[in-house]
């Protein structure tokens, strides 16, 4: 018995002294590992995905409030809430926090990626050339994602907050974007074709934000460097993950959502009248996936610009640049010049040209043309707000304005600071 007791005592002692509760679990990556230059590609991808998600949320909800789409039913998953159906982006609505959070994360991740990449520096001169070019390609792309994230925030958010700051001038987003695009343009050392294409995209992005900064001369200069055929897209993917799908497309994919329609939108009327290929709409004999208060069950005529879950969304294009040039000309009362620019876009898009007799008519056409060209690209709210602030001439279609026709009781033109930011940020 004594031997058993001794044995147990030894075992217990051995067990006690060998106690070690330290465990390293696999899976999540510890923060410091991302300082490694080799993590840059995945970080840049993270910034891209974050931006794609930000555009997804803002683009869809913003399209509903701007009446680029009309609600057709669902209010929950992939749906349009009752408030948004009414055009209401109220500050107290915690549902809109998601939009703020997604967009802010996109900005922060992209800027953090740049910070870490620049801290790590490029591969040493003796490193394989492919590694060095890949680094510069990635760094420039990170700048692009950061620039477009700031543009997304600037065009769609009512107020500016950066990294937990107090409210900053709203134009801060645009000045940051301008700076980021400028740095992107300056990057060299990567693959020539990639660097050139990305620099053109940065130039287009910079032109767009300079419009909001009222730097029309610089905007037109930038726009002039972007060929009309140029397009730079945000990709989406259909690989089983809702967050990577084009949200506007998936919400009308009928699996099971038929959450929005082009019924009762000016885009439908315009398409019927002109057949403009930029406003494709599918006519079905279905109805939305639920009844909506204004109208009951409505016809399900979904947009077909983003026909698939993997349909990309344009971030910048040569045609947008021509419209910037047109708007700059209208500001200078150059009616003829503006119409030339507008019709360059229309001709390039494969549709008929238009004419205006007065500056006001030209403004109306320009506003419509931007609505057509940038349809469902998370850009319309920014335009509507900018024009409203500048009190520009030219009418909007009643179907995208407050009133019974559009079933809008109000039309908020920007997203408020998210409730989560307001409740956590001590500087607000």
């Amino acid at each position, binding site marked *: 018995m004594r031997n058993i007791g001794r044995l147990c005592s030894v075992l217990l002692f051995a067990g006690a002294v060998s106690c070690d509760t330290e*465990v390293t679990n696999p899976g999540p990556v510890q923060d410091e590992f991302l300082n490694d230059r080799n993590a840059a590609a995945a970080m840049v*991808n993270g910034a891209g995905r974050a931006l794609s998600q930000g555009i997804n949320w803002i683009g869809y909800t913003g399209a509903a409030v701007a009446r680029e789409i009309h609600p057709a039913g669902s209010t929950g*998953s992939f749906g349009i*809430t*009752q*408030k948004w159906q009414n055009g209401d982006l109220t500050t107290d609505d915690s549902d809109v926090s998601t939009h703020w959070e997604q967009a802010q994360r996109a900005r922060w991740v992209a800027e953090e990626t740049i910070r870490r990449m620049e801290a790590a520096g490029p591969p040493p001169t003796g490193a394989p050339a492919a590694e060095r070019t890949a680094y510069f390609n990635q760094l420039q792309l990170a700048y692009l994602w950061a620039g477009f994230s700031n543009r997304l925030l600037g065009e769609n958010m009512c107020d500016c907050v950066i990294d937990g700051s107090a409210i900053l001038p709203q134009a801060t987003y645009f000045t940051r974007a301008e700076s980021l695009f400028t740095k992107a343009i300056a990057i060299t050392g990567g693959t020539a074709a990639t660097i050139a294409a990305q620099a053109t995209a940065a130039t287009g992005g910079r032109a767009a934000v300079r419009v909001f900064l009222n730097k029309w001369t610089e905007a037109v200069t930038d726009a002039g460097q972007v060929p009309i055929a140029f397009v730079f897209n945000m990709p989406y993917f259909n690989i089983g*993950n809702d*967050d990577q799908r084009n949200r506007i497309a998936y919400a009308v994919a009928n699996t099971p959502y038929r959450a929005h329609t082009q019924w009762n939108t000016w885009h439908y009327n315009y398409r019927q009248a002109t057949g403009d290929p930029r406003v494709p709409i599918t006519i079905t004999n279905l109805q939305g996936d639920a009844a*909506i208060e204004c109208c009951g069950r409505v016809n399900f005529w979904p947009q077909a610009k983003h026909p698939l879950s993997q349909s990309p969304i344009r971030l910048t294009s040569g045609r947008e640049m021509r419209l910037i040039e047109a708007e700059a000309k209208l500001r200078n009362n150059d009616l003829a010049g503006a119409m030339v620019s507008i019709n360059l876009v229309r001709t390039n898009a494969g549709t008929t040209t238009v004419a205006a007799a007065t500056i006001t008519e030209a403004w109306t056409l320009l506003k419509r043309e931007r609505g057509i060209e940038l349809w469902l690209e998370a850009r319309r709210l920014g335009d509507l707000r900018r024009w409203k602030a500048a009190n520009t001439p030219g009418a909007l279609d009643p179907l995208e304005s407050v009133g019974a026709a559009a079933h809008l009781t109000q039309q908020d033109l920007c997203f408020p600071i998210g409730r989560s930011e307001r409740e*956590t940020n001590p500087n607000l």
Partner: protein
Amino acid sequence: MHRKWFLRVAQIPCAAAIALAAGQLSAQTGTISGRVVAEGSGQTIEGAQVYLVGMTLGTRTSANGRYTIANVPAAQYRLRSQMIGYRPIEQAVTVVSGQTVTVDFTMKQQAISLDALVVTGTAGTARNREVGNSISQIDLTAVQPPANVGALLQGRSAGMTVMPSSAGAGSGSMIRLRGNVSVAMSNQPLVYVDGVRIRSDGYQRNVPPTGSDLRSGNDIASPLNDINPNDIERVEVIKGAAASTLYGTEAAAGVIQIFTKRGMTGAAQWTVDISQGFAQALPFGPDESEAPPSDTIWACAVVTPCSGTMQAYRDSFPDRFDGLPTRGVSRAGGSSKYLFIDPWLRNGYQQRYTVSLGGGGEALKYYVSGTTTDEEGVLPKDKEQKKVVRGNFSFTPISNLLFSWNTSYTKNAIANTAAGNNAHGLTLNAFRRDRNYASNDRPEIVELMLNQELTSDIDHLITGGTANWSPSVNFTNKFTVGFDLAQIENRNLRPFGFILAPTGIISSRRNSYQNLTFDYSGSFVQALRSGLRGTLSWGGQWVTTDNRATSAYGENFPGPGKPIVSSGGTTLGFEERTRVINGGFFGQVLLDVKDRYFLTVGGRVDGNSAFGENFGLQYYPRASFSWVASEESFWPTWSSAMKFRVAYGQSGRAPGAFDAVRTWENATNGWGGQPAFFPRNVGNPDLGPERTTELEIGFDAAFFNDRLSSDVTWYKRDISDALFNVRQIPSFGFLESQLANVGKMKSDGVEATATYTLFERPSYGLSIGGSMHLYSSEVVSLGGAAAFSLGNFGWIMEGQPIPVIRTDFCVTNPEAKGAAPVISSDVEDCTFGPNLPTETYGVHTNLRLPYNISVVARGEYNGGHYISDGAANAATSRSVRWPGCYEFYTLTETGRASEIKAIDTARCVVAGTRADYWIYPADFFKVRELSINVPIPQRLLRGARSGTFTLSGHNIWKWVNDDFKTFDPETGNNGGFDSRVRSILEHVPPPAVYSAVLRLTF
């Protein structure tokens, strides 16, 4: 083939036991037999332990109260009979070789068993009188158990709340002991089975690892329900830190310890249970007659001319409407009383068969059992087929060393119907009638949702051995090693051609949960002086929790057929692995003065792998005092037992495996198949456990010759360093909240139980009783963090309960009639109340009739809490004509708008409705059990020693408050019982279950 192999293996221990028992026959032995009955009633007592004092020879009485102890060496003995609820009794007996001596016992009921042994929360074993905290001992020996452990525990102990989630097959139950102790971590108590820790949180929900996480049956199974209720002898429940200190970090939510049956020395006893029954859904919507005039089918019937598809449908399928009211029905023939799903509801046939064998010799005792259960749910695809085998063996190689090894293995196959907030599911699409995702409420369309196949296969092994070694009478050691392996394989298939995913989707997930337990405790008892005795206890525990998950996903099948994941045009894989180690040591001193005063002081030191790198060990102290006042000379004789007790203690709850570390992760599926880092966790190197300090004061008492028994406990909890999900500033990029030990919370409550024997006669008797739990909780401090949401409108806010139901918007004039709703977004206006019940009352009665027929009834009221009804909002916001709005529709359509309440206007007018307005007070009363137990007369038992026949119904009647127009307060959401905030989504509420059970012993 496999079954034969298994049976052969299973025979080995049985054969060994029989051989050992047979070996005893050659000695000079005799037999003791007899009968145990209750004093007064003369009712036979089943399950009483009858054993020779100082020896391991003994047995339990069968259902007719009889016992036999064979192979007793000829000698003189003291024979003892004991049973929870009765005063132990001893008699002298002389055993003569080759003869049978009869010893009958008449046991007197004892309301308070001061000398009953308690294991849970004590260092080793303690007598009830020594324990300063409240402990619930639930003796189940004579109880005819329901189908699962969750239902078994319902309403059994004051302060223990057990709530199911849905009617889904395999659905588990939420268990709370004295409410919540944590807002970030699990509040399920720790569960031990024969000293082996098992997983107490739920299994993985059967949902694809990517894409929508709603395409599921949206409920979860509980590992607790893998234990066969028929195998349980008793359950001990300690409800908080005052009692659970010795379990250390993880035990703040209390501990439930299950003790399974053991074999006793004597002849082998076979027990056979045959159970047949059915589950039936109770109505959970308004009567059809309450439907408004505009209700579709009714309108069709009365409007002239009636035309269109509605009339055509009625004409085509008259049988579907035959005998049904004309209002409040769907085109499938569903009625508003069941939210239109009744065409798919059924009385789910349930059957269970159990065989057990217990017995053994002096050296080896055994208890083996096998159970097979086949239960249909009320939904058409719901089915649970469970098989459980158990082998409990104890071996005494030498007189002071006892080895016991207990093993159970459960194999469970669950099939579920797609339910919950699942747009591809039956429940959601049936509830929403023609405004569902098929835009069609015809049965042949809705039925297409049944093509989703959801199956879960569970394998659960619980095995553990304990060695009790007592080198001397005052020195004892106990060492336990245990292993719990719970595995689930979830398969989720929407086949090619599925109505809402035409090219098909499949997922296959395997989750493995392992707990490895090492537990040692030792104690040394020393008489210090006359009337003063000291017990020094020490020990340690080491628990490794290892959770692993691998899952695969495929979509876009090439065509029809039975696919596997590899059949998909796109396939994805996922993996998760976490391991957490908790180790700790404890020491304790118990001072016993005159066997009436007991002072215990001790503590435990813990380390945990999830603590932050700057955080060291955690110390948890405890102290308790008990005084058996009824043994004082001055105590009045009308109080037969009185123990006062006070206990203080601390325990903790550790953070999760990754919570302390600042991390990034590859976003799900990367980005377009390429790796993509997303910020995940801000990290906190100072992260430690939350610490719960509890003080409880109470007494256990019996009065009037034990006719009245009662226990009352007041408790107070303070939770410091509470782990709060501190929301991060979104503009800093990390959107996930970070755990931090910043919070302070408190709760207090009173638990009381009482049982009174109204009369007790030989042929009849009646006892009644009740229990009460009053509970309140409060978040004292957020530590500077902002108030935060737990989802489902549950919030953590200073000065409010844990959690409180709060909405963004609310109606401030809800009862105003004819008035427009006044909407407020003020936080104070929109704060409702707690999500957990603050008042729980239980009633029970036991009526004994001639021939020992007994009738048992138990009911339970829960109230004071609030719940959100997400299903009603999801329907009304989509313009579904919702039965919860029938009154509003009727008043509107009959020109009585002045009678409409403002809250109904807010909820039912589609343009303005919000989920925020669908908050109800969740008070309810349910009849938990009504059963009649009839002993079968001996003359009808051919070859059987005893038999009983029991008819029972569980949850057969309910009352809910008037606000609750649809569903049931025990209806859950997509998270099942693990949901931190209970809310209602598109589930069929838990059903009533009726059963008839025949039990025979041989």
